[in-house]
């Protein structure tokens, strides 16, 4: 159904440049940027999760406020580099169910980040005993979501069904339906 859109996107000069340019600054460096963004966003997030779970407990949580710009910078790096990578191979990503698993896990992780942000900003000023166990659960969920998103992202390279809009579908034994396509 979306094939004409995928075909059009794949024919745009940016998409062609991403795929075919011999320049290291097209696909390779944008992929590297995506990984550094991952390190900043998920990495600093995991460091905050560890602190919530009691690691380095003597560091006041309120002191970590200055980490947020780096974390958000990582998020924007990855939104932009991710869109560029998606523009390079829209069919490859959007016809693969694993891609939606990745996006879903990222959405949950970023939603959890909002409550982590609130908790961090309130710092140790609000030692509400009831909130601590629930924040620990949030921290564990956050770590698991990022680990899952990372694994899903890595598996994209091995689970795609169609590379391009005009590619034949690759049969994947773990997919119960016959993928559509030319």
């Amino acid at each position, binding site marked *: 159904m979306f094939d004409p859109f995928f075909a059009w996107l794949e024919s745009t000069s940016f998409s062609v440049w991403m795929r075919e340019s011999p320049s290291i600054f097209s696909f390779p460096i944008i992929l590297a940027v995506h990984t550094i963004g991952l390190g900043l966003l998920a990495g*600093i997030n995991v460091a905050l999760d560890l602190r919530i779970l009691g690691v380095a407990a003597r560091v006041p949580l309120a002191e970590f406020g200055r*980490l947020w710009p780096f974390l958000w910078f990582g998020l924007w790096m990855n939104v932009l580099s991710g869109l560029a990578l998606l523009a390079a191979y829209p069919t490859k990503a959007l016809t693969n169910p694993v891609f939606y698993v990745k996006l879903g896990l990222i959405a949950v992780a970023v939603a959890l980040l909002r409550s982590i942000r609130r908790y961090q900003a309130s710092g140790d000023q609000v030692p509400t005993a009831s909130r601590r166990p629930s924040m620990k659960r949030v921290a564990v969920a956050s770590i698991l979501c990022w680990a899952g998103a990372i*694994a899903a992202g890595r598996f994209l390279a091995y689970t795609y069904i169609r590379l391009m809009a005009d590619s034949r579908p690759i049969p994947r034994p773990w997919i119960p339906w016959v993928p559509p396509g030319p």
Partner: protein
Amino acid sequence: MSSLQIWLHATLRGATPVAELMRSAWAWPTVESIHFIGLTLLFGTIAVWDLRLLGLLPRVAIADLHRLIPFAVLGFAINATSGSMFLMTEPDQYVYNPAFHFKFFLLAIAGLNVAVFYATIFRRLRSLPPGAVAPRMMKLFGAISLMCWIGVIVCGRLITFYRPGLCRSGEPLAFIIDCIPRISGR
């Protein structure tokens, strides 16, 4: 091609049980996922530490924040293990890969930086109370570390774009002969 590379290649190829495991279904992507999760743990905790050294979190006591470091070490251990598994499975893809050489060079600098840091100012920094004026040298260690790890990630990601042609990179006959069983096995 140096004799070191030939020796390394031969040694890594000796680890056949690991290679067999890695060639089983889904093993390679799974170990890759673990490698990227280790990356996140290592880079995230080290970034927070380096930003502290760079002066971003001046009121955080170094001794208190140092409790985060075992997790960076854990991330490193995860990645040293998973990374070795790639090397033992496809040694020629790494031993003859310029991106991989550069990655190792940056890893060595990062390691040296850590060694010098612990040998010199760490003890003094650890005894400082939160908010105390720290020696400016501290920032240099943080900057070197952060740049090295960013470089390690970039080079790691570039490995796949600098892959030597399968078994084509070897001039010495020994290396080519070594590759023939693999080509015919495919």
